[in-house]
């Protein structure tokens, strides 16, 4: 090998500092990332309890955190069953939204004609407040609770996915394509090797919005449909029976489910699009 006197030798050592992979669980649990949000939750609950006590509100005006454990204890099995129903309908609706949204996004991303044709239609569809569509769907397919709920969750959440995928694909710099095209790669290869991975960060950004929307859709339908199922229906029955602690318990359970869903998406994003995260230096 020729000595390369004029090729600048790297100043920084390329080897990573040995990763301290054996960081203990205990130090993680006491780290700021865990302690800070936990402390915030505790402070929030204490303030809530104080607010209710100080004002002397009865539980039909505002339930307090101390009312919640009894509510959960009374309806524990119901919460599990209903929570599961809400969860799977949201997830199925979301999966459908991902499939359809990605397909529409691909069609719009690769063909300018299709983009110009479909975009106004999509925007118009998205502009309709879904709360108004919920009763219509509920009446159209009376009794088909699962179908209705999944349908609304899907309808409300596919739009951001379709738009993000189409934008991600249509803004792909031509050089990216040309690297592979100049080697004779097919369109399919270019899609899998370049277009798809390049779009993933945008896709996950949209998925975080979509998961929240799908969750809202599921709950709207569960509350509105007569004899519905899921946490929404439990909420509705709490309302009918003026069981305010139950209603608040459902709210908290919904918040919990929403957080779980959201962080599942965040975890998936870390796995599949973690490369897009830049270190904040």
């Amino acid at each position, binding site marked *: *090998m020729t000595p390369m006197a004029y090729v600048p030798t790297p100043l920084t050592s390329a080897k990573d500092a040995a990763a301290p992979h054996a960081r203990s669980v205990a130090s993680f649990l006491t780290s700021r990332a865990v302690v800070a949000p936990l402390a915030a939750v505790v402070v929030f609950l204490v303030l809530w309890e104080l607010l209710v006590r100080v004002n002397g509100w009865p539980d039909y005006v505002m339930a307090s955190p101390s009312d919640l454990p009894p509510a959960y204890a009374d309806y524990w099995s119901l919460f599990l069953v209903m929570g599961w129903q809400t969860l799977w309908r949201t997830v199925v609706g979301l999966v459908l939204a991902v499939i359809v949204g990605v397909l529409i996004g691909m069609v719009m991303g690769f063909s300018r004609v299709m983009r110009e044709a479909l975009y106004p239609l999509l925007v118009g569809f998205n502009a309709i407040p879904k709360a108004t569509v919920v009763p219509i769907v509920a009446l159209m397919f009376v009794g088909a609770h699962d179908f209705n709920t999944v349908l609304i969750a899907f309808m409300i959440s596919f739009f951001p996915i379709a738009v993000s995928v189409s934008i991600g694909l249509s803004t792909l710099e031509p050089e990216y394509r040309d690297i592979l095209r100049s080697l004779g790669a097919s369109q399919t290869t270019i899609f899998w090797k370049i277009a798809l991975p390049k779009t993933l960060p945008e896709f996950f950004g949209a998925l975080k919005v979509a998961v929240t929307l799908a969750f809202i859709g599921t709950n709207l339908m569960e509350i509105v449909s007569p004899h519905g199922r899921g946490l929404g229906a439990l909420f509705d029955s709490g309302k009918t029976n003026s069981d305010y602690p139950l209603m608040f318990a459902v709210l908290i359970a919904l918040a919990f489910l929403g957080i779980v869903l959201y962080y599942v998406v965040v975890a998936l994003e870390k796995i599949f699009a973690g490369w897009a995260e830049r270190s904040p230096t």
Partner: protein
Amino acid sequence: MIESGHGSSRGPVSSQRRGGRVDKLIDIKNVRHAYQTQDGRLPVLDGLDISVPEGGFVAVVGPSGCGKSTLTKLIAGLMKPDEGEVWLHGKRVTSPRSTVGMAFQNPVMLEWRTILKNVMLPLEIVASKMSRREQEERARYLLALVGLEGFEDKRPSELSGGMRQRASLCRALVHQPDVLILDEPFGALDAFTREDLWQTMHQVKAKEPFTCVLITHDLRESIFLADQVVVLSQRPARTQYVLDVPDTGPRDLDHLYTPEAAEMLNILRHQIEVAQGRAPAQPEADEVPEPPPGSTAQGMV
């Protein structure tokens, strides 16, 4: 000093094709091309003739927007010329082929891959007889050749612009292309980095057998790297002038400060001015020195 001869180590896989030198490995014959735009037809290339012998290195310079990038796309087979023919290695180019390597001004790297995986990308497309191990060795060998040893597992975002351009060069070469097409690869770099990369190019050229077409705006770059400089006219581009750079053996940066180099740069600068319409085609006798013996003028107005 630059060693332009044959290095002893050639990397794990060396190319076997070396019979007689092919006279016109790249042969561009009377190529015309126009784009269809909203404002109608925009003629870009107007009867271009360029040929490059096997192992040759041709630099193409010309006014901005005259059609240089278009030319690279025609050679790569990414587009078909309206008229005329492009031949590579005795075969007419009608579609992209895997015997071509390309690098652009923007060293597009796939952010989700490591540098090593970026360099190996073409090997995933081009049917290759190499085993995965050999592929990786080849990529590592090239990265070391351009001075990126130790950066194989870094992400592109962790590299400087110059380093990314080095990696992009490796990617263009990893599948052992016959033809290397470089479209202003050093255009966005600062002067020092650029000069480093010129020397790296000589390094690589000494070890890798390829025929190169380099598009550039930098006249010093053209005479430092190429053995022939083609000046294109204003759009629609024709070949306006061809300058043969005499082979003075190994080149280093000092060569750019010799009287011979100054003379060549003068000629080229004048030709660019002619192309831009800022100078008359026939210079007054005392203004521009006589072209050196090797140079030939073609298609002069």
